[in-house]
């Protein structure tokens, strides 16, 4: 059995989209997680609800809302279009969908990690003269590395597997917007497509196992360094 070029394309696109989405989402999620964990401000509950919305909404609904907001005929979509950034029915839209769908998972993991850092250590850093950003950079950030890593891995996995919002927002154009899950679904629609589907399922499994193994190895290294032992 030979694997179609389309399957490799889908794998490549999925990896690309998931990496890109993770890279963009991690700093953003970290910031939101820190706000939610350490700051009090009006609208905090609303922000929290908004971040978690994609977790409870059906993914198709999220995809449709993205289409309504960023479609070529929507004001926001038109504005971005004139700047040369097309999202709907474009791979960059798949990145946006992946970011939004993986965001709640990332924020959750990072928020828990930040909340686990003893604020007394941050106080101690402040009494030593460290300004707020330095307290975060030199105390909080190193101590929450495992949480950031866990959030990133979960977000990456979610981005790799994202299907409903992606297919609704950017459709399923082979070679352009067809991610691995979309390609598996498409292969299963064609009589005799099971072979290709199984090949792609194995690809998805390999990526998942690889990501988990990598994150475990990294987590062990980080934990050794920050355990203070």
């Amino acid at each position: 059995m030979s694997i179609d070029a389309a399957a490799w394309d889908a794998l490549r696109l999925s990896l690309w989209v998931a990496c890109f989405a993770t890279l963009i989402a991690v700093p953003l999620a970290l910031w939101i997680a820190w706000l939610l964990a350490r700051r009090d401000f009006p609208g905090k509950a609303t922000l929290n609800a908004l971040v978690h919305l994609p977790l409870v909404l059906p993914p198709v609904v999220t995809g449709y809302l993205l289409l309504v907001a960023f479609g070529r005929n929507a004001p926001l979509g038109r504005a971005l279009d004139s700047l040369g950034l097309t999202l709907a029915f474009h791979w960059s839209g798949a990145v946006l969908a992946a970011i939004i769908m993986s965001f709640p998972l990332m924020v959750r993991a990072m928020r828990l990690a930040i909340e686990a850092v003893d604020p007394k250590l941050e106080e101690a850093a402040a009494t030593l003269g460290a300004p707020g950003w330095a307290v975060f950079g030199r105390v909080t950030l190193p101590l929450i590395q495992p949480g950031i890593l866990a959030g990133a891995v979960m977000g990456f996995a979610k981005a790799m597997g994202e299907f409903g919002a992606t297919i609704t927002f950017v459709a399923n154009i082979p070679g352009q917007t067809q991610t691995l899950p979309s390609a598996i679904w498409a292969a299963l629609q064609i009589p005799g497509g099971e072979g290709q589907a199984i090949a792609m399922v194995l690809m998805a499994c390999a990526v998942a196992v690889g990501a988990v193994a990598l994150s475990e190895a990294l987590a062990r290294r980080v934990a050794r360094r920050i355990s203070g032992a």
Partner: protein
Amino acid sequence: MSLSVDIAHTFGDFSLQVTFQAEGGITALFGRSGAGKTSVINAVAGLLRPDQGRITLSGETLFDGDTQTFLPSAKRRLGYVFQDARLFPHLSVRDNLTFGSRYAPPTAPGPSLEDVLSLLGLRDLLDRAPGRLSGGEKQRVALGRALLSKPRMLLMDEPLASLDAPRKQEILPYLERLRDGPLGLPILYVSHAVDEVARLADTLVLLGNGRVQAQGPLYEVMADPAAVPLLGVREAGAVIEAEVIQHAADGLSRLRISGGDLLLPGVQADPGARVRLRVLAQDVMLSVKRPDGLSAVNILPVKIETVHQGEGPGAAIALRAGQDRLLARVTRRAVAELQLAPGMGCFAIIKATSVAPGSIGR
């Protein structure tokens, strides 16, 4: 250098209202747990914003409730040594020590890393992780870390409270060196242990129920009969300075105070050195006549200054022996039977074994 604190703060049904000054040397803030000590020191450090009042350090306003001035912790340049060390677990001892160095003004006076390593005996610990330090070592690193941030003043919140007795003895000499050494750094020292305070402090502020109950030079406050209930009847007692004269072959050492000589065991200091003696009030007996045929060897002629009748069966008697002040605790019945009254001369009998080696130092 002078720290001036005048603050009021309410949490729940506890109200704190504290006014005191701290000049050079070690100012001890003493009180039982719940007296509000930690709140006061946190307010000085900028970790607690009081409801109202003022805190100034050498004329600079750290906090002013009227003008809504609140200098953040990071800008106060006060080194804080916490009870629980609070070392950064992800950094080596070396990186913990130098954490604050980069934030101090380059021209600020302060010790070098070398100075701190030898002062605190940290050289062999530099590459260790905080998780592999003993409690005493952690506290020494925390102290070094605070010193290397070149603070204008050190704040210490029960730095010895989490340590066992041998570890305490390990740290105390370092604190004494800090007090008497060339750094001359003023220290605000929070404690609920009378022995630590007696050994270290120059000035004493007694805190109770969120209020300052007494304050002044250590020798005066410790000898004040009114302070007995605040310090606890078993812990109260005068602190006096003595000069070591000589060590005898039988283990006793002759020490001179202004009112006479005392023979005490377990004195480590060399002849000529000045040491602090803590004489517990309950270890001082009074006799109207010079006693004869007693096993106690230390008998000083004293003059009664005040007689302070407490609520219980005891009375605290303030005594003067030469320039020094002593405190004796006797029963009210003894006061009546011996007709003890201010101005009366009598003899104080001090049990030679009553001065623990740990309470001698300078």
